[in-house]
């Protein structure tokens, strides 16, 4: 079975801190995605990547950046965390050419910015 692992289930940070959320997948997927999930808003795409060192903005990239130095790892970076970035963050992956097919999700990181 595909496994998508997010490094932290819960994270508490202070305003202005630099925050790294890590995601690793073990199925050699080319596509990786970062979503945030907020009540009443569903899942919104922040960034995605088709390949190593490649990144594309999603629908809400402001305040975020990403890094993909290795195929299996996709990191989401909050350069200066703000309270409005308190949210559930979900990482997902899929095979190349299957960005619109079945996505495999990690368990999520609930981030609280105080």
């Amino acid at each position, binding site marked *: 079975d595909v496994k*998508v692992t997010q490094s932290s289930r819960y994270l508490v940070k202070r305003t202005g801190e630099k925050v790294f959320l890590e995601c690793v997948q073990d199925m050699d997927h080319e596509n990786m*995605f970062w*979503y945030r999930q907020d009540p*009443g*808003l*569903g*899942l*919104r*795409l922040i960034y*995605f990547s088709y390949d190593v060192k490649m990144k*594309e903005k*999603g629908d809400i990239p402001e305040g975020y950046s990403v890094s993909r130095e290795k195929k299996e790892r996709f990191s989401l970076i909050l350069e200066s965390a703000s309270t409005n970035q308190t949210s*559930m963050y*979900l990482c*997902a992956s899929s095979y190349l050419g299957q*960005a*619109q*097919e*079945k*996505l*495999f*999700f*990690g*368990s*999520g990181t*609930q981030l609280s910015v105080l």
Partner: protein
Amino acid sequence: SQQGEEDPQALSIQEGENATMNCSYKTSINNLQWYRQNSGRGLVHLILIRSNEREKHSGRLRVTLDTSKKSSSLLITASRAADTASYFCATARTSNTDKLIFGTGTRLQVFP
């Protein structure tokens, strides 16, 4: 903007009853998918139906797609307490093949 909108937002039923959730969308799609999310966890893919299909089954799940009405429904038959979760539809738009667009979800509670 959100492509898929589910209704109802919340649904409570007894074990053994059927649960029906609906999803409406706005633009032309390649496929529509349903995902399940247990409380505080990630999403799990349930079923995918392509734009040229009208109905699909997987175990106790039945999905229908009406492209003329731009809507889909997910039916869970003989519900169990373990089906308690949030259910999301996700659409693959023909105009943007890079990603899926998720709806806001239906929260299903199945009482024993």
